[in-house]
């Protein structure tokens, strides 16, 4: 990443930075394509808030892809972002019962099939995560906070042991395992997916 400190960021720099979780890369990426997506949404009967949501969801799609590690960009990053954002906004308009007609035509070198696959995968994961959030809500304390601290906030086992007042890390681990098992039961109570059958 050292060469990326310079003024010019290439697409690859940005993507690897994103995968590594670099705040700078994310901030730069965010600034780079925000005007384009914002314009797309605003000029197609969307609000600034809509533009923000669509752009962030687009970046999430991008993030999921780079963090999976198999991201092979066949076109410009800009084209990919535009294609994803355009489809997301189109779907949003359809959901709102508006005429799904966009003023903006797709870009010429858009990898339509790839983007469609990515979005389908993204949608599947979105459902999974929504279910996960509901399950976590139903879990109750202290399991909810414990899992949240470990998996979302990435606290170490030691920190968790101290925070929750367990006698030792092993105890905390057992506790975490129990919570995980419970969460899993809740999760699969009403979630059906091909991956888990």
């Amino acid at each position, binding site marked *: 990443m050292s060469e990326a400190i310079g003024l010019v960021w290439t697409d690859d720099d940005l993507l690897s930075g994103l995968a590594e979780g670099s*705040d700078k890369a994310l901030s730069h990426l965010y600034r780079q394509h925000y005007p384009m997506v914002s314009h797309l949404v605003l000029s197609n*009967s969307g609000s600034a808030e809509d533009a923000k949501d669509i752009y962030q969801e687009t970046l999430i799609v991008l993030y999921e892809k780079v963090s999976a590690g198999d991201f092979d960009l066949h076109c410009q990053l800009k084209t990919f972002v535009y294609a994803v954002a355009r489809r997301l906004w189109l779907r949003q308009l359809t959901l709102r019962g508006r005429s799904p007609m966009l003023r903006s035509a797709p870009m010429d070198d858009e990898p339509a099939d790839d983007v469609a696959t990515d979005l389908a995968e993204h949608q599947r994961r979105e459902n999974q995560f929504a279910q996960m959030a509901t399950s976590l809500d139903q879990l109750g304390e202290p399991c909810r906070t414990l899992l949240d601290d470990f*998996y979302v906030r990435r606290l170490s086992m030691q920190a968790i042991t101290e925070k929750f007042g367990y006698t030792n890390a092993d105890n905390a681990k057992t506790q975490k395992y129990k919570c995980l098992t419970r969460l899993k039961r809740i999760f699969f109570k009403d979630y059906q997916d091909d991956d888990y059958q």
Partner: protein
Amino acid sequence: MNADDMTSFESTLRAYGRRVAFKEKLTNVHQSLEADALLPVAEPQQPVRLWWNIHRPTLAIAAAVAIMTTFATIILYRSYQSSHKQDVQYSMMMRNLAVIQQTQNRLMSNIGGRGKVFQQNPGQVAGSGFLLTSSGYLVTNNHIVQGADSVYVQSQQGEVYKARLVHTDPTHDLAILQIGQDTAFHALPPVPYGFDARSSDLGERVFTLGYPREEIVYGEGYLSSSTGFRGDSAAYQVAISVNPGNSGGPLLDERGNVIGIITAKQITSEGATFAVKTNVLLNALNAIPPDSLKADPLLMNRRGRMARLPRKQQIKQMQAYVYQVKVFKH
């Protein structure tokens, strides 16, 4: 619950954790960038054009409908206009007395008191009429007498009588006058012609007498159709030359029976004159309220006495029964 399952679920939870963290990160990035005013806010471009693009199909349909409507309206208007023109083609054969004719009237030294009527206030409309009965009932066209203040009739000899309007039938353009109450009028011998209510055949030789000018004028022709203007079954079409002023004149067949009353002609076609049928006249007479007749019964002559006479004799006999109708309006 095997370990594999658990690992897979745990990785999902890890991914979920990453997602939540990333979302938070994005929100933070957005907020900080916004705080530093580093996010350009794109203005929605050309909202009018956008609107136009979205609604283009709708507008196209609307425009198509508008164009269709416009043309349909134009076509309808044209057809209405052309049908209206045909009405204009139908010209009633009454005579509007021109200024010159009025002066001529004045030049004629008419010392008789009755002549003064025309000197002081010349008639504005003139037509023809003929006696139904010798007692003084006349028939003429409604379009001649309508709006009249006073109606005078003038015989071929130049005698003027004041006429009373007994009845009008605007639908068939008929008007019944009475001159029997004018003291100057003396009952004539019974009318020489009969009234034939039966429908006449095509090709029937017909003739008429009327006043297209101050003198009585004879005209001859034949029955060319059993219906009138635009299929009007109450009238005949006659090939006979008539002029303004002939309106209200009798139409007689070979045997001297009245078969119709000259009403109008079609300007656009040659020799298309229209005459109201006699049976329509008889129906109109039956419709007169008895009070209007003032106890002077209207008895029609069903059979004429000119059937075997030559045409010149027929004309000679009947010309005293055909009058010029002059109408005064203000």
